[in-house]
């Protein structure tokens, strides 16, 4: 059985997602000892990032790069507000259409899809390999600044189904996973209908929504029917947070925005637990520090 990680990295006007994927690939290699890493990107992103980092550096991190064509209409239409703390917000293209194609794109029998900004600071995801559950993803998450609660991240609608996070997904190739991704594509391609049924807010296409709906449908229309990953939970920070530094291997010092005093921060040292960092600029600012402690140095 072959196994590997899969990331999607399409740069936009400001965020170098492929650079994030390169940093994360080195973290995966060092912490999980898995060297089969595939990144799906596009030619423009590849050219930009290899020019900045060097081709060898990128190719040493990523064993398999798949270049796809962007759907230009989708790229223009799917804009979201990116924040670099509450002090800076910019509407930018959020190209996430091809995650639904992961089943066909992954060259592995067992695949863990991770967001490029889900930083792998431990070997916890190695608990997935060889698992009896053919498909796993999480609905459970925790903000590391425990006082902040956002109910829109728990359900698609206040009276609706539980939201699963497509941030980390484990699947084993087989009938179930194939059907799952077909359903995700079906939801993606018929958004208006599914939005009218599941009533998620806004016009942004999010994989979290389409994966949650597929989980609901293929779970026999039962909530939380798909098993979660063998992790205690997914940990995250918000895009209103910032990063001070990466002072040691698998350690990041965060500025966490105070819930009752927006724009003010407290500070936290996060060690040895994988974390979803929503402020992409912040990761890029400390990416060189992060790399200092990896084999990419």
């Amino acid at each position, binding site marked *: 059985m072959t196994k590997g990680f899969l990331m999607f990295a399409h740069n936009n006007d400001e965020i170098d997602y492929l650079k994030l994927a390169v940093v994360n690939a080195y973290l995966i290699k060092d912490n999980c000892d898995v060297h089969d890493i595939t990144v799906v990107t596009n030619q423009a992103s590849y050219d930009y990032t290899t020019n900045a980092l060097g081709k060898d550096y990128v190719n040493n991190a990523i064993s398999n790069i798949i270049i796809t064509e962007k759907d230009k209409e989708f790229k223009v239409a799917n804009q979201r507000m990116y924040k670099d703390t509450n002090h800076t917000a910019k509407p930018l293209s959020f190209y996430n259409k091809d995650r639904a194609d992961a089943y066909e794109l992954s060259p592995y029998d067992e695949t863990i899809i991770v967001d490029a900004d889900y930083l792998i600071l431990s070997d*916890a995801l190695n608990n997935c390999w060889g*698992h009896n559950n053919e498909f796993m993803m999480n609905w459970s998450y925790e903000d590391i600044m*425990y006082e902040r609660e956002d109910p829109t991240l728990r359900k698609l609608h206040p009276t609706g189904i539980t939201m699963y996070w497509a941030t980390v997904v484990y699947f084993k190739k087989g009938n179930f996973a194939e059907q799952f991704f077909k359903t995700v594509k079906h939801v993606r391609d018929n958004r208006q209908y599914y939005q009218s049924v599941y009533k998620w807010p806004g016009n942004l296409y999010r994989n979290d929504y389409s994966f949650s709906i597929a989980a609901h449908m293929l779970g026999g229309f039962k909530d939380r029917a798909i098993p979660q990953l*063998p*992790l205690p939970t997914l940990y995250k920070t918000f895009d209103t947070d910032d990063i001070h530094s990466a002072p040691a291997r698998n350690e990041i010092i965060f500025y966490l925005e105070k819930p009752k005093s927006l724009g003010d*921060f407290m500070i936290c040292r996060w060690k040895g637990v994988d974390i979803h960092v929503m402020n992409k600029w912040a990761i890029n600012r400390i990416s060189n520090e992060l790399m200092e402690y990896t084999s990419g140095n």
Partner: protein
Amino acid sequence: MYMSSKLTKALEFANYRTTLNVQHNNLKAKVQTLLNYSINGGTFEISQTLISFVQTLIDQQHTKAVLLDVYNNPIEIDGLADFLEEIISRYFEATNEYHAEYTKLRKSRKVHKLIDLDIDD
């Protein structure tokens, strides 16, 4: 270490108790992660209960058994003695690290000490 104005401000605003709780939560997250153990297609949370149960099975001369994992799936463990050795080893590794870090946290009386930042008092 150079202390930026942003850092100074953050430290000024930081509440010792909140920082302590956040740091403690990080420790708990790390320990819980270390106490998850996958084998034979199942996942177990290593706990005192699991350790005692496996020891009981061994005391009753069982060498293999079907255990329910965290998903309530039946997982056959062939070689209970080796399994016990593995989970005890992992349990000690996680809890010893937890103890060392927790002791350090409890002794830290300032925000920058809680996060192990090397700046002047």
